[in-house]
């Protein structure tokens, strides 16, 4: 049985995509005519072609799809602090701590995968719990600097603790334990919790802190505790994303968790918008897919990528989510 997708180049550029579809339809007609004699053969044929299409798709794109999942988790992790008005860029480092913790446990112990993942989320959360109280006193660009410095410390530690982390060579041969349902479960769980938070007193307080910290404090709310909560939960989510990610990329190295990744995560949060966890979902998906969509542009890709970001920041400074918000805005008092 032939598979149209196997015979076509896998390109996501719109122009080529149109050609692909035309190509498939043409082939399809031929097939349908040749096997039109029996209805049951018909359905099983379609069933079969569907399955095969899925298998091929998965073989080609599984890493991309799983990356969307973990990147959305990362975007949610930075949404938490951005929603409190905190510009922290330590999420890449927390992701790295989670990735190395989970990967090392998988490589060097017989712990079950999910327990390794859990520890990979708990360790960065514990680190955040220690890092938070001194750094969260800072705000604005000073907080960004402090968390940036922390990120560098983590990266340089991973680079130099060769006995433990393999240094610059990274960790190789991490078992590919992350299944689509692991990622889906982690993502939907995180999204559910954050959506529930967002619609409650917790989300309202975070938005209040973002707008005016002093006024929020004088409403009797423990601003520092809320900030620390957001920071620690964000670190846990980033660590979980790192652990999941390490278990489908096979290989990790310290430089994956440096400044570039930090900025990428920040871009997801800002692009999607911090008004709702859905903003983080939009940002995470877009930032992951954009380079793939623009693959046809070759070397011009980063250029267009940046241009799209600039346009969105200019026309919707509160992120893409903000464009839809006025449609969704429901009065708190009906």
């Amino acid at each position: 049985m032939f598979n149209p997708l196997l015979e076509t180049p896998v390109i996501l550029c719109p122009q080529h995509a149109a050609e692909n579809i035309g190509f498939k339809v043409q082939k399809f007609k031929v097939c349908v005519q040749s096997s039109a004699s029996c209805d049951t053969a018909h359905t099983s044929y379609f069933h079969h072609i569907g399955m095969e299409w899925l298998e091929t798709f998965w073989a080609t794109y599984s890493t991309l799809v799983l990356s969307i999942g973990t990147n959305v988790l990362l975007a949610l992790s930075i949404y938490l602090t951005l929603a409190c008005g905190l510009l922290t860029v330590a999420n890449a480092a927390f992701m790295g701590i989670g990735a190395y913790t989970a990967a090392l446990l998988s490589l060097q112990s017989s712990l079950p995968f999910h327990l390794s993942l859990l520890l990979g989320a708990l360790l960065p959360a514990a680190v955040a719990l220690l890092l938070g109280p001194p750094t969260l006193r800072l705000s604005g660009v000073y907080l960004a600097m402090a968390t940036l410095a922390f990120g560098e410390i983590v990266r340089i530690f991973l680079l130099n603790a060769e006995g433990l982390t393999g240094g610059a060579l990274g960790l190789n041969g991490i078992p590919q334990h992350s299944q689509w349902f692991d990622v889906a479960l982690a993502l939907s769980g995180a999204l559910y919790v954050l959506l529930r938070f967002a619609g409650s007193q917790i989300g309202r307080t975070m938005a209040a802190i973002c707008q005016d910290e002093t006024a929020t404090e004088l409403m009797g709310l423990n601003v520092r505790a809320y900030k620390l909560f957001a920071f620690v939960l964000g670190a846990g989510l980033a660590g979980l994303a790192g652990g999941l990610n390490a278990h489908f990329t096979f290989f990790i190295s310290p430089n994956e968790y440096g400044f570039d990744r930090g900025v990428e995560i920040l871009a997801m949060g800002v692009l999607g918008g911090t008004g709702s966890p859905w903003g983080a979902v939009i940002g995470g998906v877009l930032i992951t897919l954009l380079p793939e969509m623009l693959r046809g542009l070759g070397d011009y890709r980063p250029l267009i990528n940046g241009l799209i970001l600039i346009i969105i920041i200019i026309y919707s400074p509160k992120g893409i989510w903000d464009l839809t918000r006025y449609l969704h805005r429901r009065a708190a008092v009906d």
Partner: protein
Amino acid sequence: MLQLSSIAKNFGGLLVLQNINLTVPERGIFGLIGPNGAGKTTVFNLITGLLAPTSGTVEFRGQPLNGLAPHRITRCGIARTFQNIRVFKEMTLAENVLVAIGRQDRYGAMDVLWPSARLRAAQQLERSEAKALLAKVGLADKAAILAGTLSYGEQRRLEIARALATTPKLLLLDEPAAGMNGAEKQQLMEEIVKLEESGLSILIIEHDMRFVMGLCRQITVLNFGRLIAQGTPEEIRANPAVVESYLGEESAEDGARVQGWS
């Protein structure tokens, strides 16, 4: 109810407040006046814990407030509004008030994660409380619009509603009438009297003399960080030191003729 004892506050070499003794009794409306830069707002910042006094103590209902975090002081029963308005501009009026109402821990994190009947009931109660508070300051019909779109005077009234949502016993109002027209001021005076009748102590910083003299039982006057007079509106009006601090030495003799003072 509130007692400031020999409070001093320095910013570096600048002596902002010196030897301030101030008592706010249970129930009643009290005024804190003085020329610009006299240190009035600093007094509010010291009471609410935003600043720590250099020396001296603040006590509220017998409990010392020194060293308590601002949110703890609010929970003790002190609420305030701000001279430079600090409403949450990108929230609706109702949300503004709900931020303060929701603190009361009617439900926990687990209730938030799983929508229970208890949570829905608590949230329903919060919403009706928010509505009632907005009605108290005459903003009930605007509950669903964004606070940033309100007029100056309305934002000041929203701040009062938000302060009331913390269920205070003492309310500190920092220039509540600034930016209001005559009719709005009159309405605000009536609202403040009603709040006092409901059992609150109220301390007001205000420059509008008619407003202060009309409302307050007792008035304290600050000038250059020192307490220069304390007494009833009549006593303050007749106090030469007060008139001098506002109008200068020469005017002091015929100061009573100046608008607002008589």
